[in-house]
């Protein structure tokens, strides 16, 4: 006889909050709520203990919560990030079971553990182990197990471990109806527990409940088979983290990065893979500062957490941050068989080779440093010195052409004696920039110097009165 399947479910009741606090330990101390839109009005989806102490409750309108607590931090719920986190947890769990499924709506994972009981101990033991590991990664997970997936999902919420099918009805029957989310009208007919529902004649029940509810009861007790969509691990690893507090100091980035790398290595071990190159991307709080990429290359495929972290730490030491960091992301691709032969550092780098950009630029970048070869792009701003910016080669170069303006602009406007030039056209007045603290008021002129070159000059009234040259007409 085939061994009965046993499902272990992990439920993360505070996943959205975990995603915040795992990037910043201090956020546990400040009152914080996660908001979502409930009936088009922002409401409290979840809140952390300091906020709860101030009286905030899940489900209340966001405005009411803001009224309870001065300086309450509000973050909007990010469902994509939650799904990604569940996927990464699934990657982690993959080492314990080849059959892992995601239940995103439930913030839950389910893995089949009956087959691996001899390797990892019984469901209770494995629960304790997994729960501890996930807590290390910054996720609070509740575990439970049962012979059906639906029952396991329910068991996780109530901390139950049900071993055999014949115990299902008795164990689940103890649960109060209002904690299950079955048809709410049942409570209004005077029923209190699931056991009372199990006892009802099926015909009476069928007349009164929708097919979904009936179906659910059948799946709970195993009377009806459940289709399980098994999760397939992707051939790359990527993870990102929004930082609860903006980080100014590159060493402080080590805290969130340690968690991301740990998660990656766990997932690599689960699948017996290693990486040879890792990309770290940093995002800044200023829109005008482009995200920065750091690339680490390893001599050979690895999944050693401490080794990779050592490289990360060294790389961070040399790093100057142009602005506070709000988000970090890591990405590793492809995932290599762990015993693969290492490639030489610059030769046939699989990641570079895969790009359809001219190899010359790539080589140059690799040799001279990524910053040494860049493109230009246009930015809409009336101030000429802000109407262009450096872009990375793979960014699009959208550019709005401005007639009347020279193609060549000096990096810095240069002071000049206007008496040395002949005014050809102007003035054109530019007043802009108050919103970023660089308000200016200037009159622009087209001028000619003694050698016949046509230049672009301006007279600034504020902030630095005087005459300047800014560009040259070709």
């Amino acid at each position, binding site marked *: 006889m085939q061994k009965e399947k046993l499902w272990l479910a992990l439920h993360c009741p505070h996943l959205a909050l975990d995603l915040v606090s795992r990037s910043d330990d201090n956020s546990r101390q400040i009152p914080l709520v996660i908001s979502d839109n409930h009936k088009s009005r922002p409401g409290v989806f979840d809140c952390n203990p300091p906020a709860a102490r101030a009286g905030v409750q899940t489900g209340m309108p966001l405005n009411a919560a803001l009224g309870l607590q001065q*300086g309450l931090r*509000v973050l909007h719920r990010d469902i994509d990030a939650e799904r990604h986190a569940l996927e990464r947890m699934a990657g982690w769990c993959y080492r314990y079971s080849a059959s892992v499924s995601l239940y995103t709506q439930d913030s839950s994972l389910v893995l089949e553990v009956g087959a691996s009981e001899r390797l990892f101990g019984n469901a209770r033991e494995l629960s304790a182990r997994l729960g501890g590991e996930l807590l290390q990664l910054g996720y609070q997970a509740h575990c439970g197990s049962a012979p059906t997936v639906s029952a396991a999902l329910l068991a996780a919420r109530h901390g139950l471990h049900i071993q055999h099918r014949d115990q299902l009805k008795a164990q689940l029957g103890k649960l109060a109806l209002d904690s299950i989310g079955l048809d709410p009208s049942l409570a209004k007919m*005077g029923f*209190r527990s699931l056991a009372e529902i199990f006892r009802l004649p099926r015909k*009476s029940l069928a007349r009164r409940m929708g097919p979904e509810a009936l179906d659910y009861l059948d799946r709970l007790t195993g009377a009806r088979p459940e289709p399980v969509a098994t999760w397939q691990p992707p051939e790359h690893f990527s993870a990102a983290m929004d930082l609860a507090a903006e980080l100014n100091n590159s060493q402080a980035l080590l805290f969130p990065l340690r968690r991301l790398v740990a998660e990656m290595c766990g997932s690599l071990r689960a699948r017996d893979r290693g990486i040879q190159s890792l990309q770290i991307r940093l995002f800044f709080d200023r829109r005008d500062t482009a995200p920065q990429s750091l690339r680490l290359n390893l001599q050979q495929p690895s999944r050693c957490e401490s080794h990779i972290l050592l490289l990360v730490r060294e790389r961070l030491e040399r790093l100057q941050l142009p602005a506070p960091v709000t988000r970090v992301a890591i990405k590793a691709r492809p995932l290599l068989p762990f015993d693969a032969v290492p490639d030489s550092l610059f030769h046939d780098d699989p990641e570079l080779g895969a790009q359809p950009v001219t190899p010359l630029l790539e080589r140059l970048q690799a040799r001279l440093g990524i910053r040494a070869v860049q493109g230009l792009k246009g930015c809409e701003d009336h101030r000429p010195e802000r109407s262009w910016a450096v872009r990375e080669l793979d960014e699009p170069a959208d550019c709005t052409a401005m007639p009347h303006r020279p193609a060549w602009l000096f990096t810095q406007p240069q002071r000049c004696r206007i008496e040395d030039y002949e005014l050809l056209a102007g003035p*054109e007045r530019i007043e802009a920039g108050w919103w970023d603290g660089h308000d200016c008021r200037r*009159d622009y002129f087209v001028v000619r110097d003694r050698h016949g070159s046509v230049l672009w000059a301006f007279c600034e009234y504020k902030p630095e009165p005087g005459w300047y040259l800014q560009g040259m007409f070709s």
Partner: protein
Amino acid sequence: MYSDLPGYAELACASNFTFLTGASHPQELVARAAELGYTALAITDECSLAGIVRAHEEAQRCAERGQPIELIPGSLFRLQNGSRLVLLPEDQAGYAQLCTLITRGRRNAAKGEYRLANRDFEHGLDHCLAVWLPEEESDVLGAHWLAAHFPGRAWLAMTLTLGPDDRARQARLAETARNSGLPLCASSDVQMHTRPRRMLHDLLAAIRHRCTIQELGYRALPSGERHLRSRARLAQLYPGELLAETCRIAERCRFRMQQLRYRYPREVVPKGMDASRYLRELTEAGIRQRWPDGIGAELRSQVERELELIGELGYESYFLTVFDIVQFARGEGILCQGRGSAANSAVCYCLGITEVDPARMNMLFERFISRERDEPPDIDVDFEHQRREEVIQYIYRKYGRDRAALAATVITYRLRSAIRDAGKALGFSLGQVDQLARTVSWWDEPQALSERLGESGFDPDNLKVRQLVHLVQCLRGFPRHLSQHVGGFVISEHALASLAPVENAAMPDRTIIQWDKDDLETLGLLKVDCLALGMLSAIHRCLDLVNAFHGETLTLADIPPEDPETYAMIQQADTIGVFQVESRAQMAMLPRLRPACFYDLVIEVAIVRPGPIQGNMVHPYLQRRRGLEQVSYPSEDLRMVLERTLGVPIFQEQVMQIAMVAAGFSGSEADILRRSMAAWARRGGLEHMHQRLVSGMLERGYDLDFAEQIFNQIKGFGEYGFPESHAASFALLVYVSCWMKRHHPAAFTCALLNSQPMGFYQPSQLVQDVRRHGVKVLPVDVRYSHWDCILESEPGVTGRVMTGEKNAATPPGRTGPAQIRLGLRMVKGLGEAAGLRVESARKEAPFRNNQDLCDRAALNKRELAVLAEAAALRGIAGHRHRARWEAAAVEKAPADLLKGIRPMDADRPAHPVRPPSAVDDLKADYAATGLTLGKHPLAFIRSELRKRRVRPASELLGLPHGTHVRACGLVTMRQRPMTANGTIFLTLEDETGYVNAVIWPRLWERQRATVLGASLIAIDGVMETDGEVHHLIAGRVHDFDELAKGLKTRSRDFC
């Protein structure tokens, strides 16, 4: 000083009525142009004249200041090729053409937009001049088109605003002018009055484009040049000839706003009769009806004085128009009542516009229409809430849509919306914007604001935060869009489109004219306000209930005046449910003021308002009324003004009279004061009035304290101005509703329940109150309940109630007391149609069971379930749980096929359904109907409460002043009135009554979570007793929600 500079008229100038584009108020533009010595200024908003009246007022003030400027009304239109055209009327005919064009463009498009094709400009504008702002300087085709359709009346505008290459632009425009024969004129294409408004202009652009200012890029103006530039600057930039041309164009525009003449509709006067004779006839007829035994000499002379004044000012048609509308309502059986400055005249009493008997209160009509204040009469008419639409449709029918339209309301930026939009545009996150918006109460005190911002995590010195504070203050009061006035109709003899542009409102089939009520007043256009009032509905329903139940024919006129029992009830503050004096603050005032006659009610209505409270007038008035303080007058001159209120100014009219008598305001100044009072909360700007008022009063020997008091009162009147003329009409409804409550409590409460939502209290509180008055209230039950709540003498015996049908089974002159049977309307989630189907199916035969009910009333499962949940099926299906169980099994019949032959529900459960406990029922009662007729929730936990030393509400009233107690109850009301400096008032309800608690700001700041969040609260505090007014001053607040897990009720929060 300007004499040597060339004259200039700006002919293209957008105000902020080109919404989210123009960055200055029309007044600011006019004042600035006048200051710069412009010859003329045309305000040319895009397809709109909405800002022109404000500009017109400012132009008049400029003339008074000695800086005259000609104001030309105009409008700008975007043509199909992107170029823009300014149209300026030469004369009155041109003005009408312009209004007609705007109306056509606006009526063709959705609210807030317009649609005009180029051909719309080709005809019907022969009295308008055109100034063209081309998109392309070399658009010769466009120039020829214009020259052809506006021969000798079109110009090409040369705008030089320091763009990239003005010299070349100038050359190209001159070329186009030569080719097309169009003359050139100068213009700055103005969008703000001074250069520093550039910031605000950028902000508005960002709001319009729904992006941040940073993201605006080239959509922002490159510079601040498009403001009203000095003539010296213009003389440098433009050839002299082009400047001179602007003055020549301005000279040809001879139309001014003051030439606008409004004509009353003529059909209110019968053919062959003049208005004054007809008004006289109607008045005489009214006199005969009101005083069949003859009118007293004093009243007769008042009528004569009023008619004379009306005739002198030419307002006959206005009174006749209102009379006509009221007459229609009367004919349809719609209750209505007039109020407002002219409504409480003897003439209006005779015409039946109001029921306020002039003999009952001694008021002077001149107070309402005054010769010296050039202020049009104002009559608002309140109609029954649900029947006002009939009145509106009557007006449209009678005068036609081209002659009647609603006035507009200009929706302006309030502080909160300004913070939101400015915050978003400056790039604050949504969460930050929410937090910023919470600081709204502190924006008028810079110091406190900066502290609050700090507490909310914003650095007040940060550049972005400072910019926000600055921009929000600018943006406040800026118009955003036009909306419809609640009920103000403008009716005219001629097509409205020749008077003012008309556009679409958001509601289908409603049209509005582009001016608001202040604009109408300025131009002397009359509007009639048709408002909706829920209490009139309730009163009408109450009369119907009384008449049907007792077989009487009671009308409003039969209600005896000055009934002592009614006043006795009012003095005890037993006023839950009545009009106006039911609020907590009013109820606290009643035992102190002890109203004993009609005029006392007028004062009661007006005194519990921000005006008198902020002016510190309440306490002195009460002291004088009780004889604890000598009645005295600030001066002999003011005795006449203040005598009727014991020397304390309470009404808005008195404050204005004080301004005239004591501060030397002229009639028109007092009128401006009155209007700025209403407007200051929206746009600020009472400071100049402050100076004028205080110095005027000091000069005439009044002391500074009194002057400041008066000014504070004026500020308080701001948003909630409450004139005596309105208070008088309201007081009448107060009296009527109190009389009904006193003598027909069951009918009155029943009518209130059928008129919900209205008033201050929820059905639960109304029902508890009427039960405390000994009226029996019966539950919702499909065997007996109608859709509405009704009166019964015994179950099922209702008589001719509601339906008006004769019921032979009901003996006339019944003796049993009236009981209230709750109607199906109390069941949440049940629609009116379903309720009425139940009612009519039952008339055929009683319901046998759920399936029978379901089949015959065509109910679906959900409707049956909500009835079960409301325990309305008790008579046919047993208790709630069983009813719900059975309801879930009911099947929808396929049409009538199986009617009657369906087997009874066969599958009763093998074991019985658990009956609900008392607490189950309580919870379900609240959830399904919002009230319970069973035990009050607190009765269930009374023993627990006793253990915790809580005393019931009824015990507290007998305690001496200063007793320390602990009280506990469900929070039914949380209030934080703006007049109370952050104090919160809580009302706690238990099974014995109410406790009114006062929570000082320091306490609630500390216990915020409990005060704002808990639904069952216990308070340790001290009883404060003043006569029959009791308050509990909180010292500590406890959250007792744990005790009442699941016993939940809702509070009506007014925080």
